[in-house]
């Protein structure tokens, strides 16, 4: 049956695209739960995607073989943290406008990544094609199940990692002292401050986590989808992840669900040529689809009542 095969593949590709979105959205969650809007998610993904491409390439050349993509993954997280620190210093320590700084991070990250791509690859605007990237791992027995076996249990390691991270994030956020304090800082910073919780410290941690996770999200795109880095490797996924965060009500499970929906919209593009009816539709429509769908979903989602109360406000103890 073609239907079964195609559904399996569709689920599979949906998960590939969703993985990057979930990483980034989880990152956004830690930042925004601490009260810092992170519009810079896109830029953090860019820096991760770039770092992953370069580090994996160099590791491969150094003869590290199949370990290389893992090194790329670590490099991406580190690079993401470095860029997120710019955000943190500007918005937390110097109390600058969070949205503006986020946009600046996006511009800066892309410029830096392309510049160093050109310097490292002899003026080419693209890193060389990676030979060592992640491969899908089939889980024994489970991958034999029709449709979902193909769809879910033959996935890239990054997908398994992100599923694990969603569960861990949920636990951390809602069950541990760290999570309680992080949420307190995002809801009502002065109440945290007056019981001796450092608002600055928790916000730095939140923003740095967003750098690491968004970096991993960017790396996922490089290491599972494009196998190289160029200016369009990350094309709006950071913002779609933000939309998933909002639509998922700042909850790890909710945002994962929303991200899978948006990943599905991206995956549809790959199936446009498969059916007669969809061949009639111009390809541009499929390219537009994820963005238009995101817009529609945001417009349909009711209000922002579940956003952390102190989201976007720098904490100034003198104005308590």
């Amino acid at each position, binding site marked *: 049956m073609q239907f079964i095969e195609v559904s399996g593949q569709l689920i599979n590709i949906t998960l590939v695209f969703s993985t990057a979105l979930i990483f980034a959205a989880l990152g956004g969650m830690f930042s925004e739960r601490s009260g810092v809007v992170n519009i810079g998610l896109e830029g953090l993904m860019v820096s991760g995607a770039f770092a992953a491409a370069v580090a994996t390439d160099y590791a491969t050349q150094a003869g590290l073989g199949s370990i290389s993509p893992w090194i790329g993954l670590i490099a991406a997280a580190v690079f993401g943290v470095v860029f997120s620190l710019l955000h943190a210093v500007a918005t937390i320590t110097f109390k600058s406008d969070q949205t503006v700084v986020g946009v600046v991070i996006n511009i800066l990250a892309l410029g830096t990544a392309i510049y160093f791509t050109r310097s490292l690859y002899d003026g080419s605007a693209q890193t060389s094609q990676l030979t060592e990237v992640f491969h899908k791992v089939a889980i024994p027995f489970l991958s034999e199940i029709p449709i979902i076996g193909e769809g879910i249990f033959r996935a890239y390691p990054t997908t398994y990692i992100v599923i694990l991270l969603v569960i861990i994030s949920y636990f951390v956020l809602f069950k*541990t002292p760290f999570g309680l*304090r992080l949420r307190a800082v995002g809801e009502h910073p002065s*109440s945290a401050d*007056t019981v*001796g*919780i450092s608002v600055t410290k928790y916000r730095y941690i939140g923003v740095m986590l967003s750098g690491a996770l968004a970096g991993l999200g960017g790396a996922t795109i490089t290491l599972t989808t494009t196998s190289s880095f160029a200016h369009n490797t990350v094309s709006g996924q950071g913002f779609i992840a933000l939309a998933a965060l909002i639509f998922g009500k700042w909850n790890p499970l909710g945002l994962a669900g929303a991200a899978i929906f948006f990943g599905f919209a991206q995956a549809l593009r790959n199936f446009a040529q498969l059916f007669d009816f969809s061949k009639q539709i111009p390809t541009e429509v499929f390219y537009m689809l994820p963005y238009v769908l995101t817009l529609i979903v945001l417009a349909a989602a009711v209000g922002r009542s579940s956003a952390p109360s102190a989201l976007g406000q720098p904490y100034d103890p003198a104005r308590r």
Partner: protein
Amino acid sequence: MWIPGDDECMDQSGAVVELKGITKRFPGLVANDSINFELKKGEVHALLGENGAGKSTLMNILFGLYQPDEGEIWINGEQTVIDGASKAIELGIGMVHQHFKLVQPFTVTENIVLGNEPKKGLKIDYKLANEKVKTISERYGLKVDPQMRVQDITVGMQQRVEILKTLYRGAEIVIFDEPTAVLTVQEIEELIEIIRNLAAEGKSIIIITHKLKEVMALANTVTVIRRGKVIRTVSTSETSERQLAELMVGRDVNFQVEKTKRPPGDIVLSVEGLQMKGDQGKMVLDGTSFKVRSGEIFGIAGVDGNGQSELIYAITGMRKVQDGQVSLNGNDITNDTPRKISTAGVGHIPEDRHKHGLVLDFKLSENMILNTYFKPEYGKSGLIDEKAMDSVTTRLVEEFDVRTSGIYTHARALSGGNQQKAIIARELNKDPDLIIAVQPTRGLDIGAIEFVHKRLMDARNEGKAVLLVSFELDELYALSDRIEVMYEGKLVGEVDADQRDDERLGLLMAGNTDHDGERS
């Protein structure tokens, strides 16, 4: 956790807190000017002063939220530097803030243990936390429901949660910042009881307040602060309200504006059965009805959050009502636009002058035409006639004695009192038939309060209808011809404006008969 020890830690004077020569400067003002202050073990010590006198600054220094520019802090006979709230907590100091420091979506327990959570493995041990909360709350008679979310409990209970937070952390010194500002009469009585209990248990208490009655009812000792300086420290048994008032303000004060009896005129505002749905789907206005006549001040009393703000939004058109009718001079203005209602003859002195009353980053002159700029006198061709704007501002600044460095000064740079004067000038200049004043003296010093009261009374005497919403009972009684109490979206009863009866008023404010002040 370190619990402050007994008497051996203290110096001979028995002082648990000694502040010596504390000075704190902010840009353009000295908030504390070499202040000396001493708190003895087991006493209730009031810190009395007007708004802006520097009481809160001093206590924020003691609680480690500000650092003093000069001076020493001695706790239990040892000089210390309190460089943050956690240090203060470690020293056994707790603070119950005026604006509660509570995380609304968290439970009572979560709020209490926040920052000091009992753990089981990596997880928070909620069972143990709930038990601990229960134990302390029973010991001090502070009734709370540990599992409830703070957003769902009464203001009185929220305050008890704040007190529990300090006790959970082992506080021996508890600072209360304006603790009665948001409470009903019954809740205030409960609070007084709680504070006496705490003192009896050996806790030392500081109460920051500007209310003389509270000082007399609660405190053993009172320190009066004026303009950042300590004026005097006296025992409450050796002073009187009258004397304290004079010390606080620096001159003999006459609290009462003259209220001459005059017969009310025609009905100006009529409100009939207003219904408004709130954000959470609850009815925030639930059949509110009343009338205001020309030449009278109609006061609405009640605890904050019983629909007063929404009522004003409904009358002024800032929010739509689902049902009911508002008429002005007999004309239906229900759900009209704010502009239509304003031009029909309504002046509005809003509750929050920074949120609604002014555009702080606009020049004073721009603020003076905020709700009249569209009129032809400020330009006919779509351009703004700046000359007209400036001349009206110059006139009003003069007439209402707005102290400003110029009409092009940004509203942000004005003091609270002068900002309020500017708003009142603007609203009265529209020559409205109805003046709505919501909390018109909040945060003002005595001089400004007198000014505001006088202007409202003048307007009433000129035959305007005045609708006054206030949480300050003194203000309501001083000005109103009639007073009704608002509770849960409707007016629940009238009290005599000439014969003050706090008991009855308190019952009405708490939803009539329920004696423990609890609202379900």
